[in-house]
């Protein structure tokens, strides 16, 4: 009984799919194909490699670069983008001393919401090392109001939260171009938007943040070109996304070394136990 019923049910599913297939093919054949130039896909570009030391099987952080990147974040990005998963104390991991971290927190241009200890009223105070980086806007409405109705995303996880990861962030930051002459009207940037072929819709609400050399002054004498600043801040954002990266890689090699020895020994014991059974 199972087989005739099975065949019947199978024919039911297959007929439903044949009808679906025929209508799909018919629709495809009768619908005029859209000119690919009218879709954003045609104009999008693949991210260019950021070539950071934090990728590959021997990944590590260049702490000097991370500090440069932090500087770019502080002086450029922090005006609009928060970093709500990172605390000031975490900066010690990229080479700042405890005192430096205290100073960075105390001098941070954005204050942290607090309570007046005398009156209990809402107040603002300077951050301390255990605080997270304060958000530049008190709430979403304020963020939208200040940015032409677009919310600047928090950057803590941005590298892991975008396809293409660090390559995408680096490419986006250095990807602002003039609008191509032959770009269709529907794909052209509207008011307050900028053309950037690395962005999914081609038109991004963020104006080019890294406009010219020397926008940020580096302590170590590195020339602050837009490309260098983009690379450095991307490196910094790789760290905010994955602060335990170096632990992971180091532990990984130790674990693989252990497993390799374990597996070789397991293979040898397997062979010796089976030696007489294998025959031939």
């Amino acid at each position: 009984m199972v087989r005739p019923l099975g065949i019947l049910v199978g024919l039911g599913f297959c007929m439903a799919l044949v009808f679906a297939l025929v209508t799909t093919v018919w629709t495809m054949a009768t619908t005029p194909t859209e000119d690919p130039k009218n879709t954003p896909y045609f104009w999008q570009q693949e991210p260019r490699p950021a070539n950071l030391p934090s990728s590959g099987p021997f990944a590590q952080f260049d702490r000097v670069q991370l500090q440069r990147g932090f500087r770019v974040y502080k002086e450029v990005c922090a005006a609009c983008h928060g970093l709500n998963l990172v605390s000031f104390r975490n900066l010690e991991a990229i080479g700042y001393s405890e005192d430096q971290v205290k100073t960075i927190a105390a001098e941070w241009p954005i204050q942290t919401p607090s309570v007046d200890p005398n009156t209990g009223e809402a107040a603002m105070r300077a951050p301390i090392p255990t605080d997270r980086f304060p958000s530049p806007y008190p709430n979403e409405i304020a963020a939208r109001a200040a940015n032409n109705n677009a919310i600047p995303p928090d950057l803590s996880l941005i590298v892991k939260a975008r396809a293409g990861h660090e390559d995408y962030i680096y490419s986006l930051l250095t990807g602002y171009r003039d609008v191509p002459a032959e770009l269709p009207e529907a794909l052209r940037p509207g008011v307050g938007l900028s053309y950037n072929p690395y962005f999914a819709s081609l038109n991004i609400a963020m104006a080019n943040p890294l406009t010219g050399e020397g926008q940020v002054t580096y302590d170590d004498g590195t020339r602050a070109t837009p490309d260098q600043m983009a690379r450095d801040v991307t490196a910094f954002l790789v760290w905010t996304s994955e602060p335990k990266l170096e632990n992971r890689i180091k532990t990984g090699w130790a674990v693989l070394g252990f497993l390799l020895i374990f597996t070789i020994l397991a293979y040898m014991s397997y062979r010796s136990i089976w030696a007489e059974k294998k025959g031939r």
Partner: protein
Amino acid sequence: MSFPWAKEYQPQNGFMQWMDERLPLPRLVYGAIGAGYPVPRNLNYFWNFGVLAGFALMIQIITGIVLAMNYAANTAVAFNSVEYIMRDVNAGWLLRYLHMNGASFFFIVVYIHIFRGLYYGSYKAPREMVWLLGVVIFLLMMATAFMGYVLPWGQMSFWGAQVITGFFSAIPLVGEPLREWLLGGFVPDNAALNRFFSLHYLLPFVIAGVIILHIWALHIPGSNNPTGIDVKSEQDTVPFHPYYTSKDGFGLGVFLIAFCSVVFFAPNMLGHPDNYIPANPLSTPAHIVPEWYFLPFYAILKAFTYNFLWIDAKLWGVIAMFGSIALLFFLPWLDKSPIRSASYRPLYRKFFWFGLLPCIAVLGVVGAMPAEGLWVPLGQVAALYYFAHFLIIIPMISYFEKPEPLPMSITESVLGKAETPAVGATPATA
């Protein structure tokens, strides 16, 4: 249980003797995975994957219990509690990446385990119960994995929950109330997150229970083998320990090398970037895709686009998606061929390698792609083959197939004809 020549447990000292008379747990283990379980001597490496699946479940349970100590199932803090694990809990990043990728590797080994069963006919008599319990385990795994993916409360968590619970709303009349009852609301929210967490903690232990039944049912007839023919004498078998424990030890090493390479060097390879964005009910991701191990079933769901027989296409898709797994319950009775192993079934073998496997691969790719352009008809053709394979081809194939000659015994298949001592010379039928 299985064979008369199975070694009997002998307590090695007074304490074990005392124990054996009161709670014969060591005797049970000895008979289940020790020297007391005779196993065909010709198993290939595909037989490692059952033990590996059990090991993967243990990794999930152990890492999961520790993660649950630091996770908070509340929509306001769930996302940040996962990031707290990643940043501030000692070795939290390791636990979390082990658990996240452990789910993927659990599915990899279980899929290989299932396809091994399909190829060598392990679902056939007398192992039908083993197969049925295996399908139950697979369904429980899918439910557990889905609910686990919701817990970090990222964008894909939320929208995946939205899509999957939306399946219930395709059921006529009761669908929408049923969905609201299951979710505890109109959209996935705190009530849903809490019950998903509760069930995600419960189901792995249910899986462990069904695994015990799965192994129990296996030990009645004993393990199948690559020839698919029955064990005939003691020389066809070896004791599980030390022969297969040593082989499984080696298999485990290779598995762990592959697993740890991903955990430590590409931990987010199998995940989706959008799940690092906190859930936002007001912003729909461009493409909602499930985890990779659900992609073939997702492709089947999407393949039904026509209201055939005036039944809504969405309902067709949901029925077909559940049906694509439910049909596995009937497989032992859909396939009438007396030969188990595809090694001796020329037609079945061809349909397996050139039909079923490419079809599943295509469904997996189509599942990940947006429902547009050529992906749609391609997915429909592959889905059509999937149902035809299990419900039409397999039931009919045994009428046309001429099986290849089987070896006389398992020992003969290992040692060759000349060296095989003549034993119990009954002709080999599967």
